[in-house]
């Protein structure tokens, strides 16, 4: 065993020497090609908004997507999974601690390793929007925060019961298309995403993305206005429907994808078919900047790491191939000018800005003067009363 290790070590050393002798900067730079979307990390927000046993299929939908993105490389730490009910350990489930999305029950979606970040009563509109926009309370644990930056591609998948421009949360409240559009806009303003794929499987789903107005968001839904979305099939032993059609036919494609796959989002969207879905799917790409046939599916469903090369602030004089674009320095990148005399000047440094912003919810700082607000309010109200009086006197 030790001999083997030593052998491996020597091979590594030898290859390292070889590389160092015949190094070519272009090769290295080409190796770390930036992805076309410019993202360096992937996140997934998977939301099931339905409570109660008969909505088993919504949880199965969400867990199917969870399993897919995990299989394609997004780690649990980058997945926010919201499940409004616990069907796996529900007393009505005759297969405890399992969730199946098919009648043949070959694949247990719950498995032995699942991390549910928001569950039960925690799945509320408020928590969802706070999580998206990052306006969470100070003590919120890491697993409940969406710690994305301007280089994150986010998959937002939602399923539940909805209607025209709303989606119900647990039969008690609903999120409107305007809320969602505003949340995405706020994320855009805070540079919390690079691109978003918004996918929704619910009745009249396409109405949910009509109010989004932020750039770089691609949206798709299962059914148009006045149309219902349908479940795919049921399981007689479990006793309820186990998956919805839209998700089912998405999975048909996604199950054949692996991390090296070159299949594009267009390939996925082209498989949507009224005859299969029973409803008219929708795609909204006017906010999205890239042609869909050049967007790999793994840009959103997978975690194919791209490493970005950042230039040092002041290239060393001895370095003949370092670029001279020293003016455009990303303020978040660490300044390596200190150690430029070290062996290497080109640092491979993924620029991640995990700036934990603890947004507390105060309206104005207490030391800030609020006087001008009162003054303008008084002026306005006096003006309004005057106008009213003048109007009535004219009459």
């Amino acid at each position, binding site marked *: 065993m030790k001999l083997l290790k030593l052998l491996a070590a020597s091979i590594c050393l030898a290859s390292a020497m070889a590389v160092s002798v015949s190094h070519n900067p272009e090769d290295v730079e080409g190796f770390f090609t930036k992805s076309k979307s410019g993202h360096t990390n992937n996140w997934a927000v998977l939301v099931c908004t339905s409570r109660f046993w008969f909505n088993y299929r919504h949880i199965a939908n969400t867990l199917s997507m969870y399993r897919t993105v995990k299989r394609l490389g997004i780690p649990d730490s980058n997945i926010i999974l919201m499940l409004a009910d616990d069907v796996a350990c529900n007393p009505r489930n005759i297969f405890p601690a399992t969730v199946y999305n098919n009648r043949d029950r070959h694949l247990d979606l719950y498995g032995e390793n699942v991390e549910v970040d928001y569950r039960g009563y925690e799945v509320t509109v408020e928590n969802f929007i706070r999580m998206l926009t990052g306006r969470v309370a100070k003590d919120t644990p890491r697993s409940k925060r969406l710690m994305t930056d301007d280089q994150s591609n986010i998959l937002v998948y939602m399923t539940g019961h909805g209607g025209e421009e709303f989606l119900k949360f647990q039969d008690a409240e609903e999120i409107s298309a305007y809320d969602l559009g505003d949340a995405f806009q706020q994320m855009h303003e805070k540079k919390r995403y690079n691109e978003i794929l918004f996918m929704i499987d619910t009745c009249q789903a396409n109405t949910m993305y009509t109010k989004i107005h932020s750039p770089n968001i691609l949206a798709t839904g299962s059914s148009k206005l006045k149309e219902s979305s349908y479940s795919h099939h049921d399981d007689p032993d479990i006793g309820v429907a186990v998956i919805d059609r839209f998700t089912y036919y998405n999975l048909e494609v996604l199950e054949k994808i692996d991390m090296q796959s070159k299949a594009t989002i267009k390939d996925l969207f082209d498989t949507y078919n009224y005859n299969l879905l029973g409803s008219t799917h929708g795609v909204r790409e006017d906010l999205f900047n890239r042609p869909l046939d050049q967007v790999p599916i793994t840009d959103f469903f997978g975690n194919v790491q791209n490493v970005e090369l950042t230039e040092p602030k002041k290239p060393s004089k001895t370095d003949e191939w370092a670029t001279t674009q020293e003016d455009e320095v990303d303020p978040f990148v660490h300044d390596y000018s200190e150690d430029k005399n070290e*062996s290497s000047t080109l640092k491979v440094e993924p620029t991640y800005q995990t700036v934990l912003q603890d947004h507390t919810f105060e309206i104005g700082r207490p030391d800030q003067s609020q006087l001008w607000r009162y003054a303008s309010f008084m002026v306005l109200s006096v003006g309004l009363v005057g106008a009213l009086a003048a109007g009535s006197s004219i009459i």
Partner: protein
Amino acid sequence: MTAGGVPYGSESSAVKLKQKWHGPLANLVEDLCKVNKMRTTPACVLLITGALLALSSSSSVAASASASASSDQQYVYSSREPIPIAKAPEAFHEELVLKPMNDGSVYSHFQFTTHIGTMMDEDRFDGASSNLFAHYNLFPRSIGQILHSFEVEELHLTFTQGRWQYGDWGYPLAPSAGTGVELWAWLSDDKRQTDANWKALTNTLSGLFCASLNFIDKTITVEPKMSFRNEGPYNVHAASPDNRDNSTAPPRKLRYGSLPHENVCTENLTPWIKLLPCKSKAGIASLLKSHKLFDSRFYSMAIHVRPVCEDELCRVRSLELVQTITTVFDVARHDGSFDWSISGLFERDIEHACPLATTSKVILQLPHMLEPYQYDFNPKPPQGTYFEGTEDNKVEIAVYDLIQSTKESSPFQLAMTWRDAKNRAIRQSRPGIVAHRYFTGYGQERGGLSIEIHNNNWEQIDILYMDTLPWYLKLYLHTFNLQLHGEPFEDKHGEIVKKMLYQPAVDRARPAVLEMAVTMPPKSLIKFSISFDKVFLKYTEHPPDANRGFDVGCAVITANLPRHRGQIGRGGLDHLRVYQDRESSLVKNKRLVESESSGQGDQDEDLAMDQIRVYTETLLVSLPTPDFSMPYNVITLTCTVIALFFGSMFNLMTRNFEVVVPPADKKAKGKEVKK
């Protein structure tokens, strides 16, 4: 090198060995990087990978050397010499207890114990000042960091699904809790930040264990005054009369909260398993398959963190993390047969013991039969079975050492068969204290709460009763009523209720707490009852499934039961240690400490008491729920009325109505025209 003298010589040689190997290689890497003037980081990365691989082979030599050193030596510290804290022993033990129950179910109890660090008793446990949490080998880092940053001294978190059937099953061998999630912790109050720390603790644990523990907010949290005292040998020692005076007890506070309606499922088990050094890859934990564990009549999963002693006089303190999983499998459910085997229960096998474990044992508690030879079990332990307990309550125990047995034959198998499943004569275990709690009354305006406590012992038993009721049940203390054997009892002299502490609830701020010290007469039934009003909640305060009702957490009874009755496993969480090293110094020392603290000698074992917590049922109360679509109706109706009223008034005020005569050449109607 000074303290204890002996133990560190061999270990330091191992360290030297490490340095000897690491030094030149690391230098080599640096030199190569400099010499070649490599600007390409990948090359350096490759180089370093190679170096690390080489190192790992050399460090495994070092590790094995240090392991052999530590297993040979016992860490004995003398009192006043400085102790090198960083070199404290870490140890991991794993045990599985199996016990067939009276009704054919099989009780299984997994227990994983991890020790970390050591402290002088002069330094109290304070993560900031000691470097206890500077280094992690076996102790899970996520727990260590939580304890450190929120100044937690003692932590108990239990997830439970199902209800323990005290009547059928007796008491559990190790402490369990009521349905749902129970969390209690002792926090250091040095910086007067207990409440902030508690809030942060609940939130962090909620993230760690994928549970809604963040719902334990100030409306649920209580601070029991009598129940839930400090646990662990260190605290027993510190609380003994000898030490109470001279020990400068640091300020610390207790917080308790429970969520009766919290589901327990795989997502809670996953992070729990990740705390184990071997995960579920090896050892007893490889049996933990969620599909089987959650297919049981009772499932309870806990972590307990508490300070323990490493020597007999508690000079050296360490921190103990005990992780337990307790299940009750219904083996007779499918075919009526009571036969079982490990591979049948868990659908998995133990291939080998966890290599990091110091001890790895399977303990089988044989049923207490009235007639002999009714069952058979296979294999028999190599050293034979032994008996534990006194004459009446003798328990036959078989202990298997997994480290040994899996070397000889793998996987480890254990099976039990019954000769005649129909006529089994198992001695019923009658629990000494049993309690039930239920609601009385009807309607949605007011109700009542009744608690029945049975004392089945022939002795008088002192118990502590603690009940937490949410603020939306308004208790009336003047309706408190006591019955003894079904007859109203006037407790004028405090014969039964020795002490009562009552904290009234504050709306939306804190719950009501009722704590009582009660003396139960021998063979008695005591019944308390109290009335309350139900509050009409605000529309937004209802949960999404409001019509299901609101769960009220269980009441907790803390009782001291005589040990010789053999009703419970001895010493709570320590009982397993009692089983496995019966004659070891640790247990003897622990007994010494106990006898010192209680002022009794070892010979007074018959008088010794064991503490147990008995949990009542959780309750479901239905509060008046409004028709939740009503607000929409009201809003739409109100808006319509306002719009109509405002529109017409506005029109009346701003418009002038007059008759317009149409021009003669057009066919026109009367029409209102704006002025």
